[in-house]
């Protein structure tokens, strides 16, 4: 489903030159699977999420990234979203003056329009929103407030999952969704994520800690270091990382 082949990417600077951050990432996430990407600070985890979703200022210099055979590089972020790509942000942004409900409905209908589908009616939207909000224990009043403005870290993360469940993307990237969440919130959020697991969907879970993977069980775990995947394995690799730290696992991989 998601295929990364020798992906090199970096941040473009004013001179147009890129500071290399990803140095040849090769990764394949088949439909129906959840893969975790773990790695130390500065290894390129967030860059990977921005490169895949097309954030301006990030540039692919070599290699390829495809979703169901569609070359993602060079597509606008909104086109990628309409094709079913979703990023749950590590730091969700505050959007003053735009209520959550207005925002998500606008996004949903923009995606539908791009795909040539009819808009979702207001009553249908409200019905779905009510169910999703209840499952995430989100106070319905929060949905009338400006997006993320004055929300706590945990509320923002919950709202990311609310958006994800409303938009029903085909491929999801969760960038450190566990940071800022207490144990109960983590469980609720993970249940939301798990509800979206399906044979037709794929997921990339970026995290520092093994803890999140107790709740969202990955099929494969990859270790990202210095912009490359240096080790891959089953869920047991995450436990090994927790015990031995990144240094040990990365040193072993270098041998």
């Amino acid at each position, binding site marked *: 489903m998601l295929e990364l082949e020798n992906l090199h990417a970096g941040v473009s600077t004013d001179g147009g030159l890129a500071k290399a951050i990803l140095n040849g990432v090769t990764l394949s996430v088949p439909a129906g699977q959840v893969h975790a990407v773990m790695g130390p600070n500065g290894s390129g985890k967030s860059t990977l999420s921005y490169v895949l*979703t097309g954030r301006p200022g990030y540039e692919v210099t070599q290699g390829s990234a495809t979703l169901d055979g569609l070359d993602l590089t060079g597509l606008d972020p*909104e086109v990628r979203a309409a094709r079913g790509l979703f990023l749950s942000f590590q730091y969700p942004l505050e959007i003053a*003056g735009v209520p959550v409900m207005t925002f998500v409905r*606008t*996004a949903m209908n923009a995606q539908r329009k791009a795909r040539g589908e009819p808009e979702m009616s207001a009553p249908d939207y409200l019905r779905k929103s009510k169910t999703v909000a209840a499952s995430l224990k989100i106070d319905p009043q929060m949905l009338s407030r400006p997006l993320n403005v004055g929300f706590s870290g945990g509320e923002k993360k919950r709202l990311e999952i609310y958006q994800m469940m409303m*938009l029903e993307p085909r491929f999801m990237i969760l960038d450190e969704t566990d940071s800022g969440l207490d144990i109960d919130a983590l469980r609720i959020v993970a249940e939301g994520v798990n509800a979206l697991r399906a044979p037709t969907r794929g997921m990339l879970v970026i995290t520092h800690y093994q803890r999140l993977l107790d709740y969202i069980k990955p099929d494969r775990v990859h270790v990202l270091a210095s912009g490359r995947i240096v080790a891959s394995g089953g869920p047991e690799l995450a436990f090994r990382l927790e015990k031995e730290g990144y240094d040990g696992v990365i040193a072993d991989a270098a041998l």
Partner: protein
Amino acid sequence: MTSIDELPSRRVEGWRWTDLRSALAGHNPPMAEGDRHVIARLAQAAGRMSTRVVASGESSVEIERLGGAALDVQALEFDVREGADLTLIVLQAGAETALSHRKIRLGERSVFRQFVLMDGGSLARIETDVEIAGAGATVEMSAVYLAAAGKHADLTSRVDLRAEGAIVRQLVRGAARKGGRGVFQGKFHVGREAQKTDARMKHNALLLEEGAEVFAKPELEIYADDVQCAHGNTAGQLDEAAIFYLRSRGIPDAQARAMITRAFLFEAIPDWLDAAVRTEAEGRIDAWLEAAP
């Protein structure tokens, strides 16, 4: 006829960003004698000056539309008596040159509310001059200005506080495109007799494109020692990180920019505004945002 020399040049402090002499050079409008404000004297000579009294305890709402003619000049003077309540709504659009001056004198415990929406013109200036003469007055002034290519939108205001215990709130939001120019000049003058004043001024502008201009001069001049006064002034570009966030959810770039700008400008539309005027104001801002830059 007015000799150009009688008009303030750009060397005059309050006119350095708004070139009145060039704007009026082709018009040769007559100007009345006297020591009134220059726009008031132009309006007086053009027969577009009126003076009104809002009697004690009464309430008055006025809608002023500007921009009907190539040169539209008008001036209004209001004497708002004790406990009276005045609401002014100023809607300016489409004039080549629009100049408007209003002077409001506030009595004890009177209330003055104002909302201005302006699209600018080749030169447009809306001036508000408030004198707080009685204790315990309330002033709420909001404005939105939109400066597209070739448009000049100038909002200039002065609040003279000469009595104690006034509450003043001013919020101005503006947006300028390439080749458009916004001007905000706001002054609160808090005299020695204006103890217990609580006054806040805020001006925030968005420069939507390279080549947009906004000039701002917020001023507080305070001679009383027991007051709360604050002003905030910003001019900047849209937050690209926020734009990416919206786009990553599937909202196209232009729509994302319009959505954030809209929300920013709508914050200066006051809650007290009548529903019909609100609909008109919102519609005009939306149309401006949708118009091709």
